[in-house]
C-alpha cells in the first residue's frame, strides 16, 4: 500500500496537493509577518493563500502523478527509470489516466479531454440562451450570467479548440511523417496533463467567493484588476493552458523539422503537417504575450503593481495591445490546423491532388506573418491613436487574400473529382460554406466606419461563431470522423454521422445567422437583459440553439457506441496515400516496423501507380510483413 503512495499516480498526487495549500499558507504568513502590518493588514489572508495555492497545488499535482519524475531523477543524479517502453500503448482504459509517453495515447487523451470541455462549454452556452430567451431576468443574476459567458468562451478557446487540434495532430502527425513518436515524449505527456489542470481551475472558479471570473475571456483591465478572486482562476488557468500550448508547439516544430522519414522534403509533407508547422510557429511566438497580460493583471490584483491603474500612472490601453497581440494570432492558431484537416479530407474524398499544393503551403506561412500585423483591429473603438487604425485595416483586408487562395484551391480540388459525400466530406463542404460567411463578415469588420457601429455587438458574436464553430468546429468534426477508424480501430455509424452533420449545419445557421441582425439593430453583447424589441429574434435563437445542443448528442452517441461495438476498421478504409493509412488501425505501438521511405507527393490521386511512401517489409517476422504489405496494396492496385 505504501508503495502505491510513493509511486507516480493519483494516490501520490492526493497527498501532495494538500502540501501545496500548506506551502501557500506558510509562504504568505512569512511574507506578511516579515513586512509588517503597514503593507498587509493581516498575517493571514484567504485571498493570498488561495492565490499562491492556485500555483502550488497544480504543480504538486503534476509532480504527484509523475509528470516530472524522469527529469527530477536525472537532475539529482539518481538512476533514471530505464526506457523499457513499458509505458507505451494503452492496454486498458486505465492507461488513459496515467502519465503516458505514447503520442497515440496522448492524442486520445487530448481529444477526449477537449471534447469533455466542449460539452461543458456548450452546456454553459445553452444556459446563457435559456436566460436570453426572454428579456428581463429569468434563471440567473447578472453576476452569474457574466460568469457563464466568460467561462463559456475561456473553456471553448483554451480547453477545446486549441487543444483538440493539438490532440488530433498528436495522434496523426508523427504517423504522417513516418516517425515512431514525437521528438520529446515526456514533454508531450506533461503538456497533456497541464490541460485538465487549467480546465478544472477555470470551472472551479464558479465556487470561488464572489463567483466565477465575470469579465469576459478578454478580461479587460481595470475591470479585471478589481474583480473578485474568481478572476485569479482565469489569470492562472490561462498560464497552465498556455504552457501546455507552448510545449506542444515546440514539440511539433522539432518533430517536423528533425523526424521526417527519408525522402520527405518539406514539399512532400501532407498539408496537415504544414498547417501544424505554421500553427506551432504562431503558438511559440504569440502565447507568451497572453501569459504576460494575465501576469500583469495578477500582479495588479495581488501585489498592487498598478500596471493598469490610470490614477497611479498605469496605462489601460497597454493591456489590450498585449492581450490582442496574442489573441488575434490565436484565431489563426484555432483555424490553421483545421485548414490542414480539410485539405486531407477534400483531397482523399475528391480522389484528386490538392489544387495548387505549394500555394496552399505558402498561404499558411503568409497568414503566420500577416497574423501578427492586424491585432489592433480589435481596438478600432478603444481610444488608441487614430492613425493606427489605417495600417491595421489594410493588413486586415489583405490577410483575406491567402485565406481566399485556400478556399478557391479547395473548390478547384472538388472540380471534376469523384466526390465521396460521406460524413467527413460533408463537414468539410459545410465548413467551406459557413467559413466563407465568417470570412466575409470579417472583411466587413475591417472597414472602420462599419466596425465602429457593430464593435462589441451581437454582430461580433455572430462573426466569431461563424469562424470558430462554422470554421474550426466543422473541421474538427470532419477530422474526428476521418481519423476515427485510425484512432479507435472501429468504423463509425455513417447514417448517424450524416444526421449529425445536417442537424448541426441547419441549427448552427439558425442559431448564429440571426445574431448578425441583432448586432446591426443595436443589441450589445455580454448582457443578461436587453430591450424588448429584440425579444422575438432572441427567442428564435434560443430555440435553435437547443436544437444545436441536441445534434451534439447524436455525435456523442455515435462516438461512444461505435468505439465500443463498431465494425472493425481496415488499415486504409478511405484509400488514402498518406502514411498513417499504410499501417493497421489502430497503428502498432511504434507505428512502423521500419522507418518508411518517401518517394512522392502526398496527394497523387489519379496518377497511375503513384506511391507516397514505401514501407519496407521486415525480413525477420512474417506477421510484420503481412501488416506492412497490406498497407501498400491500395497504392499499387491502382
Amino acid at each position, binding site marked *: 500500500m505504501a508503495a502505491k503512495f510513493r509511486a507516480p499516480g493519483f494516490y501520490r498526487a492526493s497527498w501532495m496537493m494538500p502540501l501545496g495549500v500548506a506551502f501557500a499558507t506558510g509562504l504568505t504568513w512569512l511574507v506578511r509577518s516579515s513586512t509588517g502590518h503597514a503593507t498587509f493588514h493581516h498575517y493571514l489572508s484567504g485571498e493570498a493563500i488561495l492565490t499562491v495555492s492556485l500555483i502550488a497545488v497544480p504543480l504538486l499535482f503534476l509532480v504527484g502523478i509523475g509528470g516530472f519524475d524522469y527529469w527530477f531523477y536525472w537532475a539529482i543524479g539518481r538512476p533514471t527509470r530505464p526506457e523499457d517502453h513499458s509505458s507505451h500503448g494503452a492496454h486498458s482504459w486505465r492507461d488513459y489516466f496515467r502519465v503516458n509517453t505514447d503520442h497515440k495515447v496522448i492524442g486520445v487523451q487530448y481529444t477526449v479531454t477537449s471534447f469533455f470541455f466542449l460539452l461543458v462549454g456548450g452546456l454553459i452556452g445553452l444556459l446563457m440562451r435559456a436566460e436570453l430567451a426572454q428579456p428581463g431576468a429569468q434563471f440567473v443574476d447578472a453576476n452569474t450570467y457574466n460568469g457563464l459567458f466568460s467561462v463559456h468562451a475561456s473553456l471553448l478557446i483554451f480547453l477545446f479548440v486549441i487543444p483538440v487540434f493539438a490532440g488530433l495532430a498528436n495522434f496523426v502527425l508523427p504517423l504522417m511523417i513516418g516517425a515512431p513518436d514525437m521528438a520529446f515524449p515526456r514533454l508531450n505527456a506533461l503538456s497533456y496533463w497541464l490541460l485538465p489542470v487549467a480546465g478544472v481551475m477555470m470551472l472551479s472558479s464558479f465556487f470561488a467567493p464572489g463567483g466565477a471570473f465575470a469579465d469576459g475571456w478578454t478580461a479587460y483591465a481595470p475591470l479585471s484588476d478589481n474583480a473578485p478572486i474568481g478572476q485569479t482562476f482565469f489569470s492562472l488557468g490561462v498560464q497552465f493552458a498556455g504552457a501546455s500550448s507552448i510545449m506542444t508547439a515546440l514539440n511539433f516544430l522539432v518533430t517536423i523539422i528533425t523526424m521526417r522519414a527519408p525522402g520527405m522534403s518539406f514539399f512532400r509533407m501532407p498539408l496537415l503537417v504544414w498547417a501544424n508547422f505554421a500553427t506551432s510557429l504562431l503558438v511559440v511566438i504569440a502565447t507568451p504575450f497572453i501569459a504576460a497580460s494575465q501576469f500583469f493583471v495578477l500582479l495588479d490584483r495581488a501585489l498592487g503593481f498598478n500596471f493598469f491603474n490610470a490614477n497611479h500612472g498605469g496605462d489601460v490601453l497597454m493591456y489590450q495591445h498585449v492581450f490582442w497581440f496574442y489573441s488575434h494570432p490565436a484565431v489563426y492558431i484555432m483555424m490553421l490546423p483545421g485548414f490542414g484537416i480539410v485539405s486531407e479530407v477534400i483531397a482523399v474524398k475528391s480522389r484528386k491532388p490538392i489544387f495548387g499544393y505549394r*500555394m496552399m503551403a505558402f498561404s499558411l506561412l503568409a497568414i503566420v506573418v500577416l497574423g501578427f500585423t492586424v491585432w489592433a483591429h480589435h481596438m478600432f473603438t478603444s481610444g488608441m491613436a487614430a492613425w493606427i487604425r489605417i495600417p491595421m485595416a489594410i493588413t486586415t483586408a489583405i490577410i483575406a487574400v491567402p485565406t481566399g487562395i485556400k478556399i478557391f484551391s479547395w473548390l478547384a480540388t472538388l472540380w471534376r473529382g469523384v466526390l465521396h459525400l460521406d460524413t467527413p466530406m460533408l463537414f468539410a463542404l459545410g465548413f467551406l460554406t459557413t467559413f466563407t460567411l465568417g470570412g466575409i463578415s470579417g*472583411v466587413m469588420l475591417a472597414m472602420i466606419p462599419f466596425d465602429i457601429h457593430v464593435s462589441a455587438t451581437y454582430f461580433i458574436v455572430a462573426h466569431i461563431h461563424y469562424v470558430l464553430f462554422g470554421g474550426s468546429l466543422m473541421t474538427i468534426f470532419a477530422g474526428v470522423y476521418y481519423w476515427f477508424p485510425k484512432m479507435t480501430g472501429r468504423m463509425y455509424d455513417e447514417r448517424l454521422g450524416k444526421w449529425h452533420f445536417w442537424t448541426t449545419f441547419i441549427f448552427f445557421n439558425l442559431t448564429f445567422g440571426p445574431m448578425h441582425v441583432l448586432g446591426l439593430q443595436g443589441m450589445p453583447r455580454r448582457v443578461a437583459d436587453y430591450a424588448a424589441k429584440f425579444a422575438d429574434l432572441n427567442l428564435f435563437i434560443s430555440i435553435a440553439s437547443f436544437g444545436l445542443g441536441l445534434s451534439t448528442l447524436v455525435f456523442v452517441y455515435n462516438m461512444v457506441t461505435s468505439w465500443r461495438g463498431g465494425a472493425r476498421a481496415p488499415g486504409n478504409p478511405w484509400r488514402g496515400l498518406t502514411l498513417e493509412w499504410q499501417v493497421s488501425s489502430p497503428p502498432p505501438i511504434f507505428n512502423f516496423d521500419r522507418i518508411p521511405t518517401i518517394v512522392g507527393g502526398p496527394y497523387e490521386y489519379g496518377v497511375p501507380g503513384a506511391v507516397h511512401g514505401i514501407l519496407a517489409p521486415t525480413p525477420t517476422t512474417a506477421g510484420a510483413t503481412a501488416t506492412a504489405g497490406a498497407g501498400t496494396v491500395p497504392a499499387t492496385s491502382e
Partner: protein
Amino acid sequence: MSKQRPLVLTIVAALIATAIGIALGYTIHWFPVGASTQATNTDRLYHVLIDASVPIFVLVVTVILYSAWQFRMKPGEELKDGPPIHGNTRLEVVWTAIPALILLGLVSYSFVVLNDNEKKPAGVPEIQIGVTGQQFIWSYEYPSSVTGGKPLNSDQLYIPMGDTVYFNMRSKDVIHAFWIPAFRLQDDVVPGITTHYRATPDRLGTYPVVCNLLCGLGHSTMRSAVHVVPPAQFQAWLKSQASTAAGSTPGASASSGTTG
C-alpha cells in the same frame, strides 16, 4: 450540348441567386433608424459591402453544390480517381490578384467614409459636450461655451439639430463604451485618457445611448438617451436646467432635484 446543360442551368441559378441576395440586402431593414449624417454614410458603406459579398458567397456555394451534384461518386465508381490536376498558375494568379484588388478598393472606400465621418464639416457650428461614464450611469457636462453662462452638469443629453457635436469622453472607474446606435457611432470611454467623436445629427427624436463595453454587474442597465431637438428648444432646455441647478444646493448635481 446536353453535357453543357447542367453548367448553364447552374450559372443561371447563380445569377438569379445573386440578384435576389443583393435585392434582399436593400429591402431588409438592417439598422435602427439613422439620425446623423455619419449614419447615412455608414449605411451606404454597408450596402456596398453587401453588394460585393453576395456574388463571392454565391460563387463559393454554387461551385460546392454543382460539384456535389455533377461530380459525386456514382455506383461503380468506388475505385475511380479524378484527373491528376495539380494546379494552374494562371488561375492561381487570377484568384490572388482579383480579391486583392477588390479588398483594396473596399478598404480605400471605407477610408473615404471614415474621413467624411470624422472631419469637421465646413460651415456647421460645433459645440462640445463632456461625457462621463461611471458604473453604471452616464452624465453630461455642457461647458460655458454652450450654456453662455455657468457650465452645466446633467444626467440628460440634449443636442441641437443642425450643429455638430463633439463629445469629450472620460471615465471615473473602468472602461465603458459610449454608443449611439442611431448615429452608428461609438468609442470607448477609458480611465486616464479623454476620447472623442463627432456626430452631426440630422433627424429630430429621442434615441438610445448604450454602454457597449462590459463594465461590471450593472452593465446591461447602463443606458441613457440622446434627445435631438430644434436649436430654440435646446436653448430653452439649457435655461430650465440652469435655473434648476441654481435652485438646488451648490455643488450638487442636476439630478439632486429629486432628493430636494
